[in-house]
């Protein structure tokens, strides 16, 4: 083993950034805009890392040249704590980690994005990318569902996406609202003109039960399963392949994922 190597970068060390703006989405979910010009790809995440509180992996929900956005849902120790932050405060993070959606692969294809609940946070950067680079796809179908009116995310973007993308289907599980269908988002997959699309890719992101239901639906619809990408969520601690928490079979969600093609995970059991 080599002696006296110059100390390599300590990848567990959080870096200080500044909170530029905090945008309330729902009572439970805020967008945190962080000043940052690092190169990040849609699908990647950061470990938000606060002294005294701990760390949590959060997807980058919006990528621009000067800032990144994170949409955080308040569910536990760290996420609760972020809600006390104010614009101008320091926030510590480390990243970006993980792989990203295969933009090269999707090029020139028909893309279907199916997001449930906070899964929207993980795919929003992808949707924004295509919003700006729409010519890279033949068509884009976006389906998303929320529990009720109070949990609708990115209201303004929903409208913009609707205006631009080939087709959008928005639904609410529990309530009725104009512009929204009623029921689970997975139930509306079959309403897409799937048989007309020669070649398509499917991105599915959401809570585990939603993704399980979506996969079942895809199987029923006889979709080509190897064309499906999931973004997985597992308990994490280090985010860089050391702590073992996120391991499924021989895969580490933090380094091999969070984006996985179906064929890479079909033989994995938690």
């Amino acid at each position, binding site marked *: *083993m*080599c*002696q006296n*190597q110059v*100390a*390599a*970068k*300590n*990848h*567990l*060390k*959080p870096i*200080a950034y500044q909170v530029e703006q905090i945008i309330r989405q729902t009572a439970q979910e805020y967008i945190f805009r962080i000043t940052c010009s690092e190169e990040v790809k849609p699908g990647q995440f950061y470990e938000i890392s606060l*002294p*005294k*509180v*701990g*760390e949590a992996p959060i997807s980058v929900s919006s990528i621009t040249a000067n800032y990144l956005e994170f949409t955080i849902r308040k*569910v*536990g120790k760290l*996420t609760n704590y972020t809600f006390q932050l104010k614009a101008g405060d*320091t926030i*510590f993070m480390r990243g970006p980690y993980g792989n990203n959606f295969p933009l090269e692969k999707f090029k020139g294809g028909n893309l279907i994005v199916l997001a449930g609940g906070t899964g929207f946070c993980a795919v929003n950067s992808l949707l924004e990318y295509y919003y700006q680079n729409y010519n890279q796809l033949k068509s884009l179908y976006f389906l998303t569902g929320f529990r009720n009116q109070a949990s609708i995310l990115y209201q303004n973007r929903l409208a913009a996406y609707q205006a631009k993308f080939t087709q959008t289907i928005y639904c609410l599980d529990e309530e009725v609202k104009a512009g929204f269908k009623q029921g689970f988002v997975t139930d509306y997959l079959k309403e897409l003109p799937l048989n007309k699309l020669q070649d398509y890719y499917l991105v599915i992101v959401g809570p*585990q039960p939603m993704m399980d239901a979506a996969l079942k639906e895809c199987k029923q619809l006889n979709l080509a399963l190897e064309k499906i990408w999931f973004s997985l*969520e*597992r*308990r994490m*601690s*280090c985010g*860089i*392949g*050391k*702590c*073992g*928490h996120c*391991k*499924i*079979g*021989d*895969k*580490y969600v*933090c*380094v091999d994922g969070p984006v996985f093609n179906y064929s890479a995970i079909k*033989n*994995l*059991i*938690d």
Partner: protein
Amino acid sequence: MAFSLNYQKIDDILAKLSSDYDIYAPVRLVGEGKFSATDRIQYDKITRAEQIVYNEKSDFSPREIISPITQTLFYFTENEFIENLPESRSIIIFARPCDINAFKRLDKIFLENGDFADSYYKSRRDKVHFALLDCKGGWESCFCVSMGTNKTSDYSLAVNFNSKTVEIEVNDSSFNKYFNDIKQCSYQYNFVKKNKIEVELPEIRPEQIEKISDLQIWQEYGQRCKSCGSCTAVCPSCSCFTTRDISYKENKKAGERRRVWASCLHPDFTEMAGGHSYRETAAARIRFRTLHKIYDYKKRFDTVNMCVGCGRCTDTCTQLISFATLLNRLSQEIKKLSVLEEGVEYVSKSSSS
């Protein structure tokens, strides 16, 4: 070159080595075992040969020397994280081939997995030299030969303690200087060639995983396992940890970020906010640990298995689960699966050799 020396001489040499190295070896904590009137054998710094427990397997592995159970990563204030990289001297660890091989397993995770090397692990690991302890035949729960970990070439010294004398093979010329004027002998390290138990490792095809995870055997072991996590705590190749922040009582704004060992046998290992866990049952957790040790790791790194067959998990289990027996049974079950799937007859190892 090999040397034979008495205990007085070896202590002189240990004294000289101590000025250049921190020396770690298994030591006996008399009466501090899990059960009353039993001892605990665990790694610690030593300065004299008589402290070294050379004729018993240690209860805990040497892993904690390089990857401490609780390790402070950073000292923090509200607006700063200050690194706490271990400043360590060079290290000599008295260890057996299985444990030395286990460090190679840990190296894969800490130094290679996920592109980044772990600075904390690396800063100590880079400084390690091994002094190979003679196994004197090994112990009943060992299955290093089955795991191919009974041998190693990664050692600076190999040491055989006898009641009056100590024989040392020097395998690293930088250590020659400590042995000037010492009587030479013809000692050569004896690697164990056969254990009392043999473990047959299962042949697993990726597409069988779902069926394998449905095997009844996991339910059975799940009923017996109390999820105490002792097996992961004594394992030389387990590497999992969790990060935790603590703030000081006196000054709430300052504190430490630490990592502590974690166990995949503990129910909260996969728990997410809201309480959902991916492996709710002991059966699922045993299955996960087993496959990690004898399948997943090997598949991922396209190398050897993670388990090194030291048998400490078997030694420590208060529910009397033998990992070796579990593996042998699993192999049989998987063979049965293969027969069912393919109608292929299998020839058992023993009858073919």
